[in-house]
C-alpha cells in the first residue's frame, strides 16, 4: 500500500523507473493480478470516461433535479469563438470538466476519480492533453496509474470523502491526481510531479462541501472546473521548475486536519455554505424530485417521511 509521495519518489529513484511503474508494480504485488489484465481494465475505465465526456458535450439533457443541463455544450461553443481568451488547452479543460459532471447529475455512467462528485477533473485534463499534445491511449492509461498512486496516498493519509473532509477532499484530491498525471505525461521527473501535487492541493485547502439541495450539481460542477484549472496551473508551475516549499505529503496531511476541523454543516449535509443561502434554500424548495422511477409508492413514502421529519424541502 502506498502511503507517502516521498516513498513513491524513493522507489522511482531506487529502481530508475517513473511513478506509473511504481504504482503498477505495487498493484501487481497487492492483487496478484497479471500486469496485462490491470492495464486492460484501466483501458476499459478510460473508455467509459471518454464516453461520458463525449455524451456531456453533445447533449443538453437536464439533470434529474432540473438544476443543470446544457452548460458544457454551451461553453464548448463559446470557447471556440473569438471572444474567449483562455486558449484551446484550458478552454477544452473547462468544457470537459462540466461534461462529465452533467452526465453524472443525470444518473449517467461515469468513473469515480476518485469520487463521482469530482469525476469531471481527471478526464478533462487527460483527454485535453491527449487531443492537444498527442498522447496515446497507452500513455493515458499510465496517467491513470500516476493519478491512482497520488489518490492512494491521499486515502491513506487524509480522505477523499466530502462527508469526511469537505470539497477539498474531493475536488482537491482529484485536482492533485490530475496534476500529477499531466506533469508525468509531459516529461516531469518525480520531484516535479510531487511539486505539482503540492501546488495544486494547496490552492484547494479549506474548500467546504455545501451542495445546494444536497445534490451533486451546484456548486459541484463548477468546483470541478476550478479544480481542473488549478491542476493545469499546478502542473505548469512545477514543469517551469518552481518548487512549493511545503512537501506534498505535508500538504495532504494538513488537508486531512482541516477536514477533521470542519463543522458538519460544511461536510455534505447541505446545511451550510451555498446550500444555506436564501437562494440555495429557495432552489432546494423548487427542485423537482420526480424523475425516471420516482413516480412510485416507495419513493412517495420516503419523501413523506423525510418531510415529516423536517429533513427534505417541501415542493
Amino acid at each position, binding site marked *: *500500500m502506498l502511503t507517502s509521495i516521498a516513498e513513491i519518489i524513493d522507489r522511482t529513484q531506487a529502481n530508475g523507473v517513473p511513478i506509473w511503474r511504481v504504482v503498477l508494480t505495487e*498493484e501487481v504485488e*497487492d*492483487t496478484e493480478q497479471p500486469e496485462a489484465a490491470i492495464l486492460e*481494465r*484501466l483501458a*476499459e*475505465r478510460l473508455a*467509459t470516461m471518454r464516453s461520458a465526456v463525449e455524451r456531456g458535450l453533445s447533449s443538453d439533457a437536464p*439533470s*434529474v433535479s432540473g438544476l443543470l443541463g446544457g452548460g458544457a455544450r454551451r461553453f464548448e461553443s463559446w470557447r471556440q469563438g473569438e471572444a474567449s481568451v483562455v486558449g484551446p488547452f484550458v478552454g477544452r479543460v473547462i468544457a470537459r470538466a462540466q461534461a462529465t459532471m452533467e*452526465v*453524472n447529475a*443525470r*444518473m*449517467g*455512467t*461515469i*468513473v*469515480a*476519480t*476518485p*469520487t*463521482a462528485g469530482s469525476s469531471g477533473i481527471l478526464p478533462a485534463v487527460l483527454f485535453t492533453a491527449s487531443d492537444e499534445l498527442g498522447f496515446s491511449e497507452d500513455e493515458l492509461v499510465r496517467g*491513470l496509474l500516476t*493519478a*491512482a*498512486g497520488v*489518490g492512494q496516498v491521499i*486515502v*491513506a493519509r487524509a480522505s*477523499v*470523502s*466530502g*462527508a*469526511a473532509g469537505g470539497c477539498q477532499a474531493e475536488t482537491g484530491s482529484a485536482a492533485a491526481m490530475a496534476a500529477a498525471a499531466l506533469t508525468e505525461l509531459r516529461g516531469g521527473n518525480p520531484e516535479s510531479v510531487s511539486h505539482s501535487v503540492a501546488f495544486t492541493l494547496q490552492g484547494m485547502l479549506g474548500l467546504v462541501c455545501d*451542495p445546494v439541495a*444536497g*445534490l*451533486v*450539481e451546484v456548486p459541484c460542477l463548477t468546483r470541478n472546473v476550478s479544480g481542473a484549472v488549478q491542476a493545469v496551473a499546478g502542473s505548469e508551475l512545477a514543469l517551469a521548475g518552481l518548487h512549493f516549499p511545503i512537501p506534498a505529503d505535508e500538504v495532504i496531511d494538513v488537508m486531512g486536519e482541516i477536514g477533521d476541523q470542519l463543522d*458538519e454543516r460544511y*461536510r*455534505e*449535509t*447541505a446545511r451550510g455554505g451555498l446550500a444555506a443561502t436564501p437562494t440555495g434554500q429557495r432552489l432546494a424548495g423548487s*427542485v423537482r424530485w420526480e*424523475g*425516471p*422511477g*420516482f413516480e*412510485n*409508492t*416507495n*419513493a412517495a*413514502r*420516503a419523501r413523506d*417521511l*423525510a418531510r415529516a421529519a423536517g*429533513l427534505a424541502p417541501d415542493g
Partner: protein
Amino acid sequence: MSVFDIIGPRMVGPSSSHTAGALRLGLLTRALLGCTPERATIGLHGSFATTYQGHGTDRAVVAGLLGMAPDDPGIPDSLAVADRQGLEVVFEPIDLGAAAHLNTLRFDVAAGEESVSLVGASVGGGAVEVSHVNDHAVDLSGRFDTLLIQARDVPGTTATITQRLAATGINIAFLEVGREKRGREATMIIQTDHAIPDSVVDEIEDYEWVISTRRLSKVTD
C-alpha cells in the same frame, strides 16, 4: 486499496458515497440474507438523512437489495422494479450518535421467516465499512469474500475450519473469533482471498457444533 478504488468504481451517478457505496451496502445486506428481501426498513443517519433523495440513494440502496451492480443502467428504475418484485421498502431518518460516520445506513430486512440486520458506512469513493451484523460489532470492508459462522464454544472449532479451508487452497486474509460468554455461542468471521466454494460451506454447516453460516461476497475491487 487497489488502483481501481481510486480510478473507479465505474458507476451510475451522481455520488460515489451516496449512490455506489450505498448500493454496495445494499448488496452486502442481500448477501447476508441470502436472497432478495420481501421487506426492508432502511435507517438513514447524518448526511444520508438530509440528502439521500437528490443523490438517488433510495434507488441505489434498493438496487443493491435487488442484486444490481454499481454500473447497472437499471438503477434509476429500481424502485419500480422493487414494487413489481414485491419488495416493500421503508426509509426512516435515524440518529446513531455523534460517533457514527455521517454516511451510515442501517438495514433491517426479511424474507419469509428469515431476518437480518446490517449497519454500515459509505466512507468515500464508493468504499464501505460494515460495523454491525445482526447487532454484533464487526469490521468488514466488502473487499474480501467473507464467511460468518455461529458455533457452539467447544475446543478445536477454529482449527477444524481453518484446516478445511487450507485443504481447498483458500488463503485466509483476516480471521476474527469472539464469544459473548465461555461455553456458549462463538462467532467466527473469516475473510478470504479466494471465494469459498458452496460444497465447502455445506460441509462446514454439517459440523455438529456449527449453528449457522452466512456469506458475504466481496463487493469492492
